[in-house]
Protein backbone atom coordinates (compact mmCIF):
# COMPACT_ATOMS: atom_id res chain seq x y z
CA UNK A 1 0.00 0.00 0.00
CA UNK A 2 1.26 3.49 -0.79
CA UNK A 3 2.52 5.36 2.23
CA UNK A 4 3.49 8.98 1.85
CA UNK A 5 6.05 8.87 4.65
CA UNK A 6 7.66 5.67 3.38
CA UNK A 7 8.03 7.32 -0.04
CA UNK A 8 9.72 10.35 1.52
CA UNK A 9 12.14 8.17 3.45
CA UNK A 10 12.98 6.25 0.32
CA UNK A 11 13.42 9.43 -1.81
CA UNK A 12 15.70 11.27 0.63
CA UNK A 13 17.50 8.22 1.99
CA UNK A 14 16.83 8.94 5.63
CA UNK A 15 17.46 6.25 8.14
CA UNK A 16 14.49 6.02 10.41
CA UNK A 17 13.88 3.64 13.25
CA UNK A 18 10.34 2.63 12.51
CA UNK A 19 9.74 1.34 16.00
CA UNK A 20 10.47 4.77 17.49
CA UNK A 21 9.41 7.24 14.86
CA UNK A 22 6.54 9.63 14.35
CA UNK A 23 5.42 11.82 11.48
CA UNK A 24 3.62 15.12 11.43
CA UNK A 25 1.80 16.79 8.56
CA UNK A 26 0.58 20.34 8.79
CA UNK A 27 -1.85 21.29 6.05
CA UNK A 28 -2.03 25.06 5.63
CA UNK A 29 -2.23 25.55 9.38
CA UNK A 30 -5.71 24.12 9.27
CA UNK A 31 -5.07 20.49 9.98
CA UNK A 32 -2.35 18.61 11.78
CA UNK A 33 -2.01 14.90 11.26
CA UNK A 34 0.27 12.97 13.55
CA UNK A 35 1.28 9.42 12.88
CA UNK A 36 2.85 7.38 15.65
CA UNK A 37 0.98 8.94 18.58
CA UNK A 38 1.23 7.28 21.91
CA UNK A 39 -1.53 9.08 23.74
CA UNK A 40 -3.30 12.34 24.37
CA UNK A 41 -1.87 14.38 27.18
CA UNK A 42 -4.01 17.46 26.97
CA UNK A 43 -7.08 18.50 25.10
CA UNK A 44 -8.11 22.10 24.75
CA UNK A 45 -9.38 24.59 22.23
CA UNK A 46 -6.18 26.65 22.35
CA UNK A 47 -3.57 23.96 22.84
CA UNK A 48 -3.28 20.22 22.61
CA UNK A 49 -0.48 17.91 23.66
CA UNK A 50 0.10 14.58 22.03
CA UNK A 51 2.64 12.07 23.24
CA UNK A 52 4.67 10.53 20.47
CA UNK A 53 7.45 7.99 20.38
CA UNK A 54 10.33 9.81 21.96
CA UNK A 55 8.64 13.07 22.92
CA UNK A 56 5.60 15.29 23.05
CA UNK A 57 4.03 17.41 20.32
CA UNK A 58 2.25 20.54 21.47
CA UNK A 59 -0.11 22.29 19.09
CA UNK A 60 -1.13 25.88 19.74
CA UNK A 61 -3.95 27.62 17.98
CA UNK A 62 -7.58 28.62 18.13
CA UNK A 63 -10.75 26.52 18.04
CA UNK A 64 -8.71 23.36 18.06
CA UNK A 65 -10.64 20.15 17.82
CA UNK A 66 -9.64 16.51 17.96
CA UNK A 67 -11.14 15.45 14.67
CA UNK A 68 -10.11 11.82 14.74
CA UNK A 69 -8.05 9.63 16.98
CA UNK A 70 -7.12 6.00 16.46
CA UNK A 71 -4.58 3.68 18.03
CA UNK A 72 -1.63 5.27 16.23
CA UNK A 73 -2.86 8.44 14.53
CA UNK A 74 -4.48 11.65 15.56
CA UNK A 75 -5.97 14.42 13.47
CA UNK A 76 -6.44 17.91 14.86
CA UNK A 77 -8.28 20.68 13.05
CA UNK A 78 -8.62 24.36 13.76
CA UNK A 79 -6.52 27.47 13.28
CA UNK A 80 -3.00 26.18 13.89
CA UNK A 81 -0.56 28.83 15.11
CA UNK A 82 2.42 26.93 16.39
CA UNK A 83 3.79 23.43 16.68
CA UNK A 84 6.33 22.48 19.28
CA UNK A 85 8.21 19.25 19.58
CA UNK A 86 9.68 18.49 22.94
Amino acid at each position, binding site marked *: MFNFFSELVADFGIEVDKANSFNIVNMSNKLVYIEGQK*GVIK*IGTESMSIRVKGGVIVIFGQNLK*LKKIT*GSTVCIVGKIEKLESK
Partner: protein
Amino acid sequence: MFKFTISPRNTEKILDKLSKKFEIFDAEKSEEKVTFICHNKDRKKIKKSLKFWGIQNVECNPIKTSSILNQFTSIGILCGIVFCAVVWFVSSFFITDVIIMGDIDFTEREVYNVLKENNIHKFILKSKIDKKNLENQIQNIPYISYVSIIFRGNALLINIREQLTNVEIVNSGTFMPIVSIYDCTITSIKLIQGTLAVKAGDTIEAGDVLVYPYSTDSQGNTCSVQPLADIVADVYITSDLVVYDKQIEQIFTGNVIKNYEITFLGLPLYKKENEVDFLKYTTKEYTVDATTTLLPIKINYKNYYEYEEKIKYSNFNENLDYYIDKTRQTALLNVKDYDIIKGESHVVREYDGYHVVEYSLTISKKIV
Protein backbone atom coordinates in the same frame (compact mmCIF):
# COMPACT_ATOMS: atom_id res chain seq x y z
CA MET B 1 -22.79 7.09 14.25
CA PHE B 2 -23.30 7.72 17.94
CA LYS B 3 -22.34 10.67 20.06
CA PHE B 4 -21.08 9.99 23.58
CA THR B 5 -21.03 12.51 26.38
CA ILE B 6 -19.11 11.55 29.45
CA SER B 7 -17.73 13.28 32.53
CA PRO B 8 -14.53 11.47 33.46
CA ARG B 9 -11.98 12.64 35.97
CA ASN B 10 -9.16 12.37 33.47
CA THR B 11 -10.47 13.14 30.03
CA GLU B 12 -7.24 12.64 28.17
CA LYS B 13 -6.59 9.27 29.73
CA ILE B 14 -10.00 7.93 28.85
CA LEU B 15 -9.73 9.16 25.26
CA ASP B 16 -6.29 7.69 25.08
CA LYS B 17 -7.56 4.34 26.19
CA LEU B 18 -10.51 4.42 23.85
CA SER B 19 -8.38 5.41 20.88
CA LYS B 20 -6.26 2.30 21.34
CA LYS B 21 -9.30 0.14 20.56
CA PHE B 22 -11.70 2.29 18.59
CA GLU B 23 -11.80 5.14 16.09
CA ILE B 24 -12.89 8.31 17.83
CA PHE B 25 -14.11 11.41 15.97
CA ASP B 26 -14.76 15.04 16.86
CA ALA B 27 -13.57 14.78 20.43
CA GLU B 28 -14.31 18.00 22.32
CA LYS B 29 -13.76 18.97 25.88
CA SER B 30 -15.89 21.61 27.52
CA GLU B 31 -15.70 22.25 31.27
CA GLU B 32 -15.87 18.77 32.73
CA LYS B 33 -17.63 17.06 29.90
CA VAL B 34 -16.18 15.33 26.90
CA THR B 35 -18.09 14.53 23.76
CA PHE B 36 -16.94 12.29 20.97
CA ILE B 37 -18.41 10.35 18.08
CA CYS B 38 -17.90 6.71 17.25
CA HIS B 39 -19.04 4.15 14.72
CA ASN B 40 -22.25 2.24 15.26
CA LYS B 41 -20.38 -1.00 15.50
CA ASP B 42 -18.24 0.27 18.40
CA ARG B 43 -21.13 1.68 20.42
CA LYS B 44 -21.78 -1.28 22.65
CA LYS B 45 -18.12 -2.03 23.19
CA ILE B 46 -17.38 1.58 24.14
CA LYS B 47 -20.26 1.57 26.59
CA LYS B 48 -18.96 -1.62 28.08
CA SER B 49 -15.43 -0.26 28.33
CA LEU B 50 -16.61 2.97 29.97
CA LYS B 51 -18.62 0.97 32.45
CA PHE B 52 -15.61 -1.20 33.13
CA TRP B 53 -13.48 1.86 33.80
CA GLY B 54 -16.07 3.13 36.22
CA ILE B 55 -17.32 6.08 34.17
CA GLN B 56 -20.77 7.11 35.28
CA ASN B 57 -23.35 9.33 33.57
CA VAL B 58 -22.65 8.10 30.06
CA GLU B 59 -24.93 9.62 27.44
CA CYS B 60 -25.10 7.94 24.10
CA ASN B 61 -27.31 9.38 21.33
CA PRO B 62 -27.55 8.40 17.66
CA ILE B 63 -26.61 11.03 15.09
CA LYS B 64 -29.12 11.42 12.31
CA THR B 65 -27.44 11.25 8.96
CA SER B 66 -29.04 11.62 5.60
CA SER B 67 -26.74 9.19 3.92
CA ILE B 68 -28.44 5.92 3.10
CA LEU B 69 -25.09 4.19 3.07
CA ASN B 70 -24.77 4.76 6.78
CA GLN B 71 -27.83 2.58 7.33
CA PHE B 72 -26.00 -0.30 5.72
CA THR B 73 -23.55 -0.44 8.56
CA SER B 74 -26.11 -2.42 10.52
CA ILE B 75 -25.12 -6.05 10.31
CA GLY B 76 -28.75 -7.17 10.31
CA ILE B 77 -29.65 -5.04 7.29
CA LEU B 78 -26.49 -6.09 5.49
CA CYS B 79 -27.28 -9.74 6.15
CA GLY B 80 -30.81 -9.19 4.88
CA ILE B 81 -29.59 -7.56 1.68
CA VAL B 82 -27.05 -10.29 1.08
CA PHE B 83 -29.65 -12.96 1.77
CA CYS B 84 -32.11 -11.35 -0.67
CA ALA B 85 -29.43 -11.06 -3.32
CA VAL B 86 -28.52 -14.71 -2.92
CA VAL B 87 -32.18 -15.78 -3.09
CA TRP B 88 -32.74 -13.63 -6.16
CA PHE B 89 -29.61 -14.97 -7.83
CA VAL B 90 -30.48 -18.59 -7.15
CA SER B 91 -34.13 -18.17 -8.15
CA SER B 92 -33.09 -16.64 -11.47
CA PHE B 93 -31.98 -20.13 -12.54
CA PHE B 94 -35.47 -21.56 -12.07
CA ILE B 95 -38.87 -20.98 -13.63
CA THR B 96 -41.62 -20.24 -11.17
CA ASP B 97 -44.53 -20.17 -13.60
CA VAL B 98 -45.62 -21.54 -16.96
CA ILE B 99 -47.88 -19.17 -18.90
CA ILE B 100 -49.64 -20.18 -22.11
CA MET B 101 -50.82 -17.24 -24.16
CA GLY B 102 -52.65 -16.81 -27.44
CA ASP B 103 -55.72 -18.35 -29.08
CA ILE B 104 -55.93 -21.79 -27.50
CA ASP B 105 -59.54 -22.82 -27.72
CA PHE B 106 -59.05 -26.44 -28.70
CA THR B 107 -55.44 -27.35 -28.03
CA GLU B 108 -54.74 -26.27 -24.46
CA ARG B 109 -54.89 -29.81 -23.10
CA GLU B 110 -52.51 -31.07 -25.80
CA VAL B 111 -50.04 -28.32 -24.99
CA TYR B 112 -50.10 -29.21 -21.29
CA ASN B 113 -49.60 -32.86 -22.23
CA VAL B 114 -46.48 -31.95 -24.20
CA LEU B 115 -45.18 -30.00 -21.20
CA LYS B 116 -45.90 -32.98 -18.96
CA GLU B 117 -44.13 -35.37 -21.31
CA ASN B 118 -41.08 -33.13 -21.26
CA ASN B 119 -41.27 -32.97 -17.46
CA ILE B 120 -41.66 -29.20 -17.49
CA HIS B 121 -43.24 -27.82 -14.38
CA LYS B 122 -42.72 -25.02 -11.88
CA PHE B 123 -39.38 -24.74 -10.08
CA ILE B 124 -37.43 -26.52 -12.79
CA LEU B 125 -34.01 -25.31 -13.89
CA LYS B 126 -34.14 -23.07 -16.95
CA SER B 127 -31.13 -24.86 -18.38
CA LYS B 128 -33.09 -28.13 -18.48
CA ILE B 129 -35.63 -26.68 -20.92
CA ASP B 130 -34.85 -27.09 -24.62
CA LYS B 131 -36.96 -24.30 -26.04
CA LYS B 132 -36.42 -25.18 -29.69
CA ASN B 133 -37.28 -28.84 -29.18
CA LEU B 134 -40.35 -27.87 -27.19
CA GLU B 135 -41.41 -25.47 -29.94
CA ASN B 136 -41.14 -28.22 -32.52
CA GLN B 137 -43.15 -30.64 -30.40
CA ILE B 138 -45.94 -28.15 -29.81
CA GLN B 139 -45.87 -27.15 -33.46
CA ASN B 140 -46.67 -30.79 -34.32
CA ILE B 141 -49.97 -30.59 -32.46
CA PRO B 142 -52.78 -30.35 -35.03
CA TYR B 143 -54.42 -26.96 -35.47
CA ILE B 144 -51.42 -25.05 -34.12
CA SER B 145 -49.88 -22.72 -36.65
CA TYR B 146 -47.44 -20.69 -34.58
CA VAL B 147 -45.45 -21.32 -31.39
CA SER B 148 -42.99 -19.08 -29.61
CA ILE B 149 -41.35 -19.96 -26.29
CA ILE B 150 -39.37 -17.45 -24.27
CA PHE B 151 -38.28 -16.83 -20.70
CA ARG B 152 -39.70 -13.66 -19.23
CA GLY B 153 -38.17 -13.20 -15.82
CA ASN B 154 -38.86 -16.43 -13.98
CA ALA B 155 -41.81 -17.39 -16.16
CA LEU B 156 -41.84 -19.67 -19.17
CA LEU B 157 -44.01 -17.90 -21.71
CA ILE B 158 -45.55 -20.05 -24.45
CA ASN B 159 -47.28 -18.05 -27.17
CA ILE B 160 -49.55 -20.13 -29.37
CA ARG B 161 -51.76 -19.36 -32.31
CA GLU B 162 -54.22 -21.90 -33.64
CA GLN B 163 -54.84 -22.50 -37.30
CA LEU B 164 -58.06 -21.68 -39.05
CA THR B 165 -60.39 -24.46 -40.05
CA ASN B 166 -59.28 -26.12 -43.29
CA VAL B 167 -56.21 -23.94 -43.23
CA GLU B 168 -54.21 -26.60 -45.07
CA ILE B 169 -56.49 -26.05 -48.05
CA VAL B 170 -56.66 -22.32 -47.62
CA ASN B 171 -52.89 -22.04 -47.40
CA SER B 172 -51.99 -24.11 -50.42
CA GLY B 173 -51.10 -22.36 -53.65
CA THR B 174 -50.20 -18.83 -54.58
CA PHE B 175 -52.25 -16.00 -53.21
CA MET B 176 -52.88 -12.43 -54.12
CA PRO B 177 -52.53 -9.65 -51.58
CA ILE B 178 -55.61 -7.93 -50.21
CA VAL B 179 -55.93 -4.57 -51.92
CA SER B 180 -58.07 -1.64 -50.87
CA ILE B 181 -60.83 -0.54 -53.20
CA TYR B 182 -61.48 2.63 -51.22
CA ASP B 183 -59.68 5.84 -50.40
CA CYS B 184 -59.83 5.67 -46.64
CA THR B 185 -58.17 5.99 -43.25
CA ILE B 186 -57.75 2.73 -41.38
CA THR B 187 -59.21 2.70 -37.89
CA SER B 188 -58.80 -0.89 -36.72
CA ILE B 189 -57.12 -4.05 -37.93
CA LYS B 190 -57.53 -7.62 -36.80
CA LEU B 191 -55.03 -9.74 -38.68
CA ILE B 192 -55.95 -13.40 -39.00
CA GLN B 193 -53.04 -14.46 -41.18
CA GLY B 194 -50.63 -12.90 -43.61
CA THR B 195 -48.41 -9.86 -43.16
CA LEU B 196 -49.86 -6.42 -42.68
CA ALA B 197 -48.79 -3.70 -45.08
CA VAL B 198 -50.62 -0.96 -43.21
CA LYS B 199 -51.36 0.02 -39.66
CA ALA B 200 -54.20 1.74 -37.89
CA GLY B 201 -54.17 5.44 -38.65
CA ASP B 202 -52.73 5.08 -42.16
CA THR B 203 -54.48 6.92 -44.96
CA ILE B 204 -54.51 4.83 -48.08
CA GLU B 205 -55.73 5.10 -51.60
CA ALA B 206 -57.67 2.65 -53.68
CA GLY B 207 -55.23 0.05 -55.00
CA ASP B 208 -52.89 0.10 -52.02
CA VAL B 209 -51.94 -3.28 -50.55
CA LEU B 210 -53.45 -4.02 -47.13
CA VAL B 211 -52.24 -7.55 -46.34
CA TYR B 212 -49.43 -9.44 -48.06
CA PRO B 213 -49.99 -13.15 -48.77
CA TYR B 214 -47.13 -14.47 -46.65
CA SER B 215 -46.19 -14.85 -43.02
CA THR B 216 -42.84 -15.08 -41.24
CA ASP B 217 -42.18 -17.62 -38.50
CA SER B 218 -39.86 -17.31 -35.49
CA GLN B 219 -36.90 -18.56 -37.54
CA GLY B 220 -37.40 -15.79 -40.11
CA ASN B 221 -38.73 -18.11 -42.84
CA THR B 222 -41.57 -16.84 -44.97
CA CYS B 223 -44.39 -19.01 -46.27
CA SER B 224 -47.26 -18.27 -48.60
CA VAL B 225 -50.63 -18.01 -46.87
CA GLN B 226 -54.10 -16.83 -47.75
CA PRO B 227 -54.20 -13.26 -46.47
CA LEU B 228 -57.09 -12.84 -44.05
CA ALA B 229 -57.95 -9.85 -41.92
CA ASP B 230 -60.79 -7.78 -40.57
CA ILE B 231 -60.06 -4.16 -41.38
CA VAL B 232 -62.37 -1.28 -40.56
CA ALA B 233 -61.69 2.13 -42.03
CA ASP B 234 -63.14 5.58 -42.42
CA VAL B 235 -64.11 5.69 -46.07
CA TYR B 236 -64.70 8.98 -47.86
CA ILE B 237 -67.59 9.06 -50.33
CA THR B 238 -67.93 12.18 -52.43
CA SER B 239 -70.28 13.44 -55.09
CA ASP B 240 -70.47 16.72 -56.92
CA LEU B 241 -73.02 18.76 -58.81
CA VAL B 242 -72.28 21.40 -61.42
CA VAL B 243 -74.80 24.24 -61.57
CA TYR B 244 -74.48 26.67 -64.49
CA ASP B 245 -75.46 30.26 -63.98
CA LYS B 246 -77.41 30.31 -67.27
CA GLN B 247 -78.83 27.54 -69.40
CA ILE B 248 -80.38 27.44 -72.85
CA GLU B 249 -83.83 25.90 -72.57
CA GLN B 250 -85.67 24.37 -75.49
CA ILE B 251 -89.38 25.29 -75.64
CA PHE B 252 -91.39 23.39 -78.18
CA THR B 253 -93.89 25.50 -80.09
CA GLY B 254 -96.17 22.55 -80.87
CA ASN B 255 -95.70 22.84 -84.64
CA VAL B 256 -95.02 19.44 -86.17
CA ILE B 257 -94.36 18.42 -89.73
CA LYS B 258 -94.93 14.74 -90.37
CA ASN B 259 -93.33 13.07 -93.39
CA TYR B 260 -93.62 9.42 -94.12
CA GLU B 261 -92.68 6.78 -96.65
CA ILE B 262 -94.52 3.51 -97.39
CA THR B 263 -92.31 0.60 -98.36
CA PHE B 264 -93.06 -2.86 -99.64
CA LEU B 265 -90.32 -5.40 -99.13
CA GLY B 266 -87.95 -2.46 -98.54
CA LEU B 267 -88.91 -0.81 -101.81
CA PRO B 268 -90.55 2.65 -101.66
CA LEU B 269 -94.19 2.66 -102.77
CA TYR B 270 -95.29 6.13 -101.70
CA LYS B 271 -93.48 9.07 -100.16
CA LYS B 272 -94.95 12.19 -98.54
CA GLU B 273 -92.37 14.88 -98.00
CA ASN B 274 -93.45 18.36 -96.83
CA GLU B 275 -90.98 21.19 -96.86
CA VAL B 276 -89.54 21.95 -93.38
CA ASP B 277 -89.41 25.69 -92.78
CA PHE B 278 -88.72 25.61 -89.07
CA LEU B 279 -85.69 27.59 -87.89
CA LYS B 280 -84.93 25.14 -85.13
CA TYR B 281 -86.31 21.75 -84.88
CA THR B 282 -85.66 18.26 -83.69
CA THR B 283 -86.64 15.07 -85.45
CA LYS B 284 -88.06 11.74 -84.44
CA GLU B 285 -88.05 8.71 -86.74
CA TYR B 286 -89.95 5.52 -86.23
CA THR B 287 -91.32 2.69 -88.31
CA VAL B 288 -94.79 1.23 -88.12
CA ASP B 289 -95.30 -2.30 -89.41
CA ALA B 290 -98.49 -2.24 -91.45
CA THR B 291 -98.08 -5.75 -92.76
CA THR B 292 -101.31 -7.51 -93.64
CA THR B 293 -101.73 -11.22 -94.12
CA LEU B 294 -100.61 -10.93 -97.69
CA LEU B 295 -98.62 -7.71 -98.10
CA PRO B 296 -95.51 -6.92 -96.03
CA ILE B 297 -95.85 -3.13 -95.81
CA LYS B 298 -93.95 -0.78 -93.52
CA ILE B 299 -94.40 2.95 -92.94
CA ASN B 300 -91.32 4.97 -92.02
CA TYR B 301 -92.30 8.18 -90.25
CA LYS B 302 -90.08 11.19 -89.79
CA ASN B 303 -91.56 14.00 -87.67
CA TYR B 304 -90.10 17.48 -87.34
CA TYR B 305 -90.83 19.31 -84.04
CA GLU B 306 -90.24 23.04 -83.95
CA TYR B 307 -88.76 24.61 -80.85
CA GLU B 308 -87.48 27.96 -79.65
CA GLU B 309 -84.45 28.57 -77.49
CA LYS B 310 -84.73 30.59 -74.34
CA ILE B 311 -81.93 31.50 -71.98
CA LYS B 312 -82.80 30.59 -68.41
CA TYR B 313 -80.83 32.16 -65.58
CA SER B 314 -80.52 30.22 -62.36
CA ASN B 315 -80.22 31.91 -58.97
CA PHE B 316 -77.66 29.67 -57.36
CA ASN B 317 -77.59 31.26 -53.92
CA GLU B 318 -81.37 31.09 -53.47
CA ASN B 319 -81.44 27.41 -54.28
CA LEU B 320 -78.19 26.48 -52.54
CA ASP B 321 -79.92 24.25 -49.96
CA TYR B 322 -81.66 22.38 -52.73
CA TYR B 323 -78.39 21.78 -54.60
CA ILE B 324 -76.61 20.65 -51.44
CA ASP B 325 -79.38 18.21 -50.62
CA LYS B 326 -79.41 16.95 -54.17
CA THR B 327 -75.66 16.32 -54.03
CA ARG B 328 -76.02 14.62 -50.64
CA GLN B 329 -78.67 12.28 -52.00
CA THR B 330 -76.32 11.33 -54.83
CA ALA B 331 -73.55 10.58 -52.34
CA LEU B 332 -75.93 8.53 -50.18
CA LEU B 333 -76.58 6.22 -53.12
CA ASN B 334 -73.13 4.72 -52.43
CA VAL B 335 -73.82 4.12 -48.74
CA LYS B 336 -75.04 0.70 -47.69
CA ASP B 337 -77.62 0.23 -44.94
CA TYR B 338 -75.08 -1.16 -42.48
CA ASP B 339 -72.49 1.56 -43.03
CA ILE B 340 -72.13 4.01 -40.17
CA ILE B 341 -71.97 7.66 -41.20
CA LYS B 342 -69.39 9.34 -39.01
CA GLY B 343 -69.31 12.76 -40.63
CA GLU B 344 -70.63 14.91 -43.44
CA SER B 345 -69.34 18.04 -45.07
CA HIS B 346 -69.84 20.06 -48.23
CA VAL B 347 -67.90 22.61 -50.20
CA VAL B 348 -69.25 25.11 -52.72
CA ARG B 349 -66.81 26.32 -55.37
CA GLU B 350 -67.53 29.27 -57.62
CA TYR B 351 -66.15 29.44 -61.12
CA ASP B 352 -66.72 31.73 -64.06
CA GLY B 353 -70.21 30.87 -65.25
CA TYR B 354 -70.91 27.93 -62.98
CA HIS B 355 -70.79 26.63 -59.40
CA VAL B 356 -69.72 23.23 -58.15
CA VAL B 357 -71.20 21.68 -55.03
CA GLU B 358 -69.07 18.91 -53.52
CA TYR B 359 -70.51 16.75 -50.77
CA SER B 360 -68.38 14.40 -48.69
CA LEU B 361 -69.53 11.59 -46.39
CA THR B 362 -67.20 9.84 -43.96
CA ILE B 363 -68.44 6.36 -43.17
CA SER B 364 -67.05 3.65 -40.95
CA LYS B 365 -66.88 0.60 -43.12
CA LYS B 366 -65.46 -2.89 -42.94
CA ILE B 367 -63.33 -2.77 -46.06
CA VAL B 368 -61.95 -6.31 -45.75
